[in-house]
């Protein structure tokens, strides 16, 4: 278990590599060879993460005695762990917790395979800061969820590092680019293993800064810097929620320790419901900004101004899921706050679902391939949030896991495409690239299928669990969420097909001669594509595996990653796998593809998708007399899907949300000018100066007493004397 206790090494390595690259990169290593440092560091990180992941599985499989929370002696055990943190009311902890955990097992993942409650590995290092004699430690918090994210971040970051050596070769700021990749990785890893909510905030902000720096990587062009600023400021808005929410948590539990907070809630559900509701709402704002949820998502598409690998790493796979991760990490807060267990609709689920919907809709309206993918990311993140909103914790994390891979693959694919097609991302300037760049094409298609959720690709399994989760819910299901989910499933398949059509099919509409990217770019693509196929295997439902007698391997993510030690206390239940739901989901995805296919390939496509080259030939003929085909199929698809939803969503998005964000800034500045001009310089400063002038002029006036005529002086003297005399004689 050494690795789990010393997990701090994992973020430390990239941090060091950041320093090395930034300060010694140019001079000692050579501007064009700094990537060596970064890649080596990430390799190390990957290995360590793998070790950590393995050790965690060991811990779950045959836990050391001190790791187990005996369901029966639930309360007492916690009593020992957390000292006086919640020394009171063990009794009802005991009852409630054990009861819940009981039925948690009952309907738990099919095979009734019960896992003991494993406590996370928490190691604290130094007194970070202190107050009122209490010192607050900095430390690491490692459990299944952590190691899962460690693996995701390490793998994708590593691949992106490799991919970038080609993609940003010869860039004017190659050194800074790699420095910030390292810094970002460090920050992200620091974030995922945060032991207390302060660390969460720190990591949260640091990744934000890295994203700012990398979006604005080419800061000579104003649009890039605008995008960077927009991203940062939008996130700052969310951070208000983050700060306040965390403060409310602190105020309620008087501790920053995540483990303690979670335990306190799970051992005594229902207490401080209101405080938790406030906290959850505030934190939701933070999630909305960081994970691109409605209505703070508008920065994400602009963020595509950054280099494509960055988009793949930060704005698809890792940073943007920080919000989701935080919800999962502090799940008891949200579970109690939004009373997910009992409601059938709640803020988080709705925001998630709605975001998924508009995201998917907007994806139709884009011509920029990266923006399509960006909106797709928004939509998928919405999925995850929705999943968490309906209580499907595992589904959300599972989807996070799979999505990371295929979305990264898609982005890198897009990058590879633009690399070939003269650095454009406009799909109208592409087309027919599949011949010129087969590897990119295949990997792209695979990941698209995964994203669309086609059996047996990874996305299928995770999306299925989400739909299932919203169908079953906890005490009662989430019908609206189910509808949203299904609609999104259909639309996702549809717009991805559209992208594939415009990018790879038809004939090349750009200029120059496109070419396949070199191996250093395609190999990562293939690895990711592979994961896009296999990632689903990590949480296969029991029934699927029974035939091959591997049911022992079912629900690995649920088994390893889910922090049952907290969730059981909440009485979180897991739905039984349902074949029908899976079929419905699959059907939706397929029909989505089908409709789009019809839209672009004409009805002949109805015969099936197997023989590609024929439809390709059809494709040319279609393009010749495109007009009436459009006219024909507009009635079918566009009128039903694109116009109403996408156009409306797009208009709303651009004219309302986006403008609000931008004008907010402008108005702030105008207000500033006004206040400065009138209040500050006018009223406050003015009054002071006026007083000064008043003193001056009164001095001038008083000088007239000094007429220079001695007799006036005498009159003044005697007059004053007389007046004083009279006054005093009368008064005194």
């Amino acid at each position, binding site marked *: 278990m050494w690795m789990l206790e010393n997990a701090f090494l994992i973020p430390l390595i990239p941090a060091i590599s950041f320093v090395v690259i930034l300060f010694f990169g140019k001079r000692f290593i050579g501007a064009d060879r700094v990537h060596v440092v970064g890649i080596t560091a990430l390799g190390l990180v990957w290995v360590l993460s793998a070790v950590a992941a393995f050790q965690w599985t060991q811990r779950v499989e045959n836990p050391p005695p001190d790791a187990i929370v005996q369901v029966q002696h639930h309360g007492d055990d916690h009593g020992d762990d957390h000292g006086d943190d919640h020394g009171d009311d063990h009794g009802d902890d005991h009852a409630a917790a054990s009861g819940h955990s009981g039925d948690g097992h009952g309907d738990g993942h099919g095979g009734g395979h019960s896992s003991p409650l494993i406590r996370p590995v928490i190691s604290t290092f130094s007194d970070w800061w202190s107050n009122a004699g209490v010192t607050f430690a900095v430390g690491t918090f490692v459990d299944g969820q952590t190691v899962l994210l460690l693996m995701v971040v390490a793998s994708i970051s590593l691949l992106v590092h490799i991919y970038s050596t080609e993609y940003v070769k010869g860039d004017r700021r190659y050194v800074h680019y790699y420095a910030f990749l390292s810094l970002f990785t460090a920050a992200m890893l620091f974030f995922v293993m945060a032991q207390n909510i302060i660390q969460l905030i720190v990591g949260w902000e640091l990744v934000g800064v890295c994203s700012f720096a990398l979006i604005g990587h080419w800061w000579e062009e104003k649009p890039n810097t605008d995008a960077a600023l927009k991203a940062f400021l939008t996130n700052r808005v969310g951070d208000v929620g983050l700060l306040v929410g965390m403060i409310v948590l602190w105020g309620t539990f008087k501790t920053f320790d995540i483990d303690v907070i979670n335990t306190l809630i799970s051992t005594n559900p229902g207490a401080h419901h209101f405080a938790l509701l406030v906290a959850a709402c505030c934190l939701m704002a933070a999630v909305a900004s960081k994970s691109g949820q409605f209505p703070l998502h508008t920065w994400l598409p602009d963020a595509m101004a950054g280099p494509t690998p960055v988009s793949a790493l930060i704005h698809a796979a890792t940073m943007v899921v920080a919000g989701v991760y935080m919800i999962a990490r502090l799940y008891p807060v949200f579970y109690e706050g939004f009373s997910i267990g009992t409601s059938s609709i709640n803020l988080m689920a709705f925001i998630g679902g709605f975001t998924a919907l508009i995201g998917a809709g907007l994806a139709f309206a884009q011509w920029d391939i990266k923006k399509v993918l960006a909106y797709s990311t928004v939509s998928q993140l919405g999925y995850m949030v929705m999943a968490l909103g309906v209580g499907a914790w595992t589904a959300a994390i599972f989807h996070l896991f799979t999505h990371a891979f295929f979305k990264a693959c898609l982005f890198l694919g897009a990058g590879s495409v633009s690399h070939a097609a003269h650095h454009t991302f406009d799909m109208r300037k592409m087309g027919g690239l599949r011949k010129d760049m087969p590897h990119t094409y295949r990997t792209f298609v695979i990941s698209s299928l995964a994203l669309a959720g086609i059996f047996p690709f990874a996305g299928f399994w995770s999306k299925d669990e989400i739909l299932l989760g919203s169908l079953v819910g906890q005490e009662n299901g989430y019908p609206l969420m189910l509808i949203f989910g299904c609609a999104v499933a259909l639309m996702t398949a549809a717009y991805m097909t559209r992208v594939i059509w415009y990018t790879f099919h038809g004939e090349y509409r750009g200029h120059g001669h496109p070419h396949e990217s070199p191996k250093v770019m395609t190999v990562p693509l293939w690895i990711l594509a592979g994961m896009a196929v296999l990632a689903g295997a990590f949480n296969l439902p029991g029934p699927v595996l029974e035939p091959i007698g591997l049911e022992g391997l079912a629900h690995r993510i649920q088994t390893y990653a889910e922090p049952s030690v907290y969730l059981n206390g909440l009485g979180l239940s897991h739905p039984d796998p349902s074949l029908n739901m899976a079929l419905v989901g699959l059907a939706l995805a397929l029909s989505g593809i089908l409709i789009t296919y019809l839209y672009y390939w004409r009805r002949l496509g109805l015969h099936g998708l197997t023989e590609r080259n024929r439809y390709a030939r059809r494709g040319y003929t279609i393009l010749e007399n495109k007009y009436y085909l459009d006219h024909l199929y507009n009635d079918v698809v566009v009128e039903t899907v694109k116009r109403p939803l996408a156009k409306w969503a797009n208009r709303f998005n651009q004219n309302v949300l986006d403008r609000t964000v931008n004008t907010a800034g402008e108005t702030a500045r105008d207000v500033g000018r006004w206040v400065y001009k009138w209040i500050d310089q006018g009223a406050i400063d003015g009054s002071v100066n006026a007083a*000064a002038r008043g*003193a*001056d002029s*009164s*001095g*001038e006036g*008083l*000088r007239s*007493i*000094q007429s*220079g005529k*001695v007799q*006036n*002086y*005498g009159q*003044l*003297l*005697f007059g*004053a*004397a007389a007046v*004083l*005399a009279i006054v*005093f*004689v009368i008064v*005194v």
Partner: protein
Amino acid sequence: MEALLAFSRPALDWHALAPELTLLAFGTLITVVDIIWDDRSKRAMPTLAGIGLLASLLPILTLAVDGSERTMFGGAYVVDDFSLVLKALFLISGYVVILMSVDYIRDGDYYENEYYTLMLTSLLGMVMMSSSRDLISVFVALELLSIPAYMLAAWRKGGARSNEAGLKYYLMGVFASAVMLYGMSLVYGLAGSTAFEAIAQELGSGESNPVAILGILFILIGFAFKVSAVPFHTWAPDTYEGAPTPVTAFLAVASKTAGMVALIQLVFVAFPGRDDVVQPFFWLIAALTMTIGNLIALRQNNIVRLLAYSGVAQGGFMLVPFAVAADAPARAIEAVVIYMAIYAFMNLGAFTVVLAVARKTRSGEIDSYGGLFQYAPGLAVAMTIFLAALAGIPPAGGWFAKFGLFRALLDAGGGWAAGLGVVVAVNTVIAFAYYARILVQMWFQSVPDGDERPIAIPGSLKAALAVTIIATMAFGVLPGLVGHFGEVSVLSALGG
């Protein structure tokens, strides 16, 4: 005839009178010497006068060491620590003034010997004033210090301004003293005696008597004129501007201090019971004096005139403790004495710098100080110290003087006192506004006429500067020095 011979000489304590007698002796000596060898003696005169002042300091020291309180002429003339402290103060400031005068008078080829004689006589009056505890002796001392001052003010007999200064000072002076005398006559009429103790007993007793109030007011007004308190200040700016600068310094410091001394004795010894009149009167006068003095000073362009108004305002500060004379007598006296001591040095210092600068620029305009820091950094720094002191900014001495005021006010406590405290605070700020105008000229501006020749400062002025700077800084850093004198003077003045 019998009656004439029946005169028996009252017992004289020669030791106690030694300072006065020494001054007198040197005054006459100067005249005699002048008569004997007139022109050849000119050079010796200032030296002689200086020696005279220092010589008369000696008996003061011995008396201080001896420390016993000596009373003469039926309590009309008292020599106690209080009077000793102030005598010393008068003599020292007189000495500094003489240092300032030497070259000024000589270069202006005015009469020298008479100048010093008059200076010494006037000082004699002040020295007597600090011992007088009787209406008559106070009156005599007052006139003894005033009449020579009238002549000194008009010293530049060729200069129209100087004459005018003399005239205004004279007319207002005698008018004021006439008013004062009328008040004295009324008070005497009620008390039946001229001795302060007797007056205190008669008037001290509660019920208010219009005649008494009239008398007290008129007396106080007479001295309010001396300390140029608003609205009895009108003579001061004109006289200060017109009179020779050393004389101005002398008036602004010594004669004002003398007036304060008289006021202290009147308020604390003669009218201790009449706080119903005294406190409101001084509250009003002090507030008026500070504020109006400062406000008018804001608009001055002639530095002497500016210092004149600043002096008026400073006088207002000194009057503040009288407003709590009855509520916190000890602190009040202490505050006034301390203020006078510090004020003497910082103001004399400022005038010394003015003299020195005028030797080069030949102008009293503030603008003529432009760029002083470039060609005469020493003088600029000195002036900065004095102005800082006048504005009451540590570590220059003035802060402790102001501190004394606040201390007295808050010791008395109560809304009125606190209110006056705020008035003081506001005035401190206004005051700095015009002191800053000089600083700005000296430090921030460039020389108006590009000539940056350094200023040649004669030795005597250097000496004067040295004394004043050292004193000002010492009082600021170790206020205990001056604080001690304040303390001892309190004990005796309150008959403790």
